[in-house]
């Protein structure tokens, strides 16, 4: 029982490691997202092109 509880600390490390990676990657993606987000005009043009079967400019 003693040896089993000593392994639990590794689970704590693991959880904190996963949490660190998850929070770091997600935060990075969020911080970078304003550069990648389409403008409202782009969204509008894209939707109109889709609905009216026009080819999007390449």
């Amino acid at each position: 029982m003693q040896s089993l509880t000593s392994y639990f600390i590794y689970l704590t490390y693991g959880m904190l490691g996963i949490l660190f990676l998850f929070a770091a990657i997600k935060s990075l993606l969020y911080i970078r997202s304003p550069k990648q987000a389409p403008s409202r005009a782009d969204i509008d043009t894209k939707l109109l092109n889709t609905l009216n079967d026009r080819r999007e400019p390449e």
Partner: protein
Amino acid sequence: MKTKTAVTFKPYERTEYAYEKLRVCRKCGHYTVLSHDVCPVCGKHALIDVATAARREARKKMQSELLFAVLLTLLAMFFADTVLWMGISAAVGAALTAMLWFAQRRSLEAQLRIRTDRMFARDRDRIRHGLIQDIRAAEARLQSEPARAYEMLREVGTLLRNDPIRGLQAELLQTFVLRRDMDLLLEPLIMDGFSPHLAGYIGEVAKLNRELIKESAIRYCLRYEPQIRNMNRGEDILAAVAGAAVRMKRYIELYPEFIRRYVHKLPEERLERLRDLLSQHAGSFPQLKLEADEVYRMRHRERHSHGRMLPPRDDRGES
């Protein structure tokens, strides 16, 4: 000839972007541009605009991520074997969750745009289906409530831009008594193909509110000039458009030949406006100037021979 009916339209609500007209049902996911409140499919008061829908989706995703971070923190605390590690787990978890929350808050606006874009890509067919349902709803009212049908088609036409919808709107408009105080639209109705209804409508608009005659309408008349001339009172339509074009120097520069062809049919004040503009640019458009002067001289002679006075000029406020 069909008799025209007197109608009133609701003013057209202009939005900065066409997609802002779309509303989606929270319950059944149906898209529509017609209703603001009640879903036409499930009948529930669950319609929201796309910005709200995107915000809901983005918030939901962000909250799930925060919940996941809190869960990992709690698990790390649960498996910690000492109070010290429990405290460390709580502190690290809280700090990382706060960092994530802060990053989410900072990029909320961008996330909304990304969500909206993804939502449209995902629901493409559903949006199209919703708009087709809207057209069917408008068609069902064509006979009983033509004005309401026009209003509905006008809303659908914001997103679905094709000749059949534009043609139907122009056809309906030609059955109404149009007035200057009506919220009339012209630019969105300009079609690729020729429509006598649209040509007739352009002619009426040119007389009622010449500010609505813009480059696209003039180009349409130029492209289909022979067909319009062959219409009943087709020359009057073209002359009205030429008269409206005279309000801006730019249009005179772009379409001097078109205007020249209809100078002889321009009303007095339009002719004077044209001559005013041409006199400000002596040496430009010699043919047009010649024609305008000739028509003016002819009318002046006729007026003198009939002993009539010049009508007052009531249109001096144009640029």
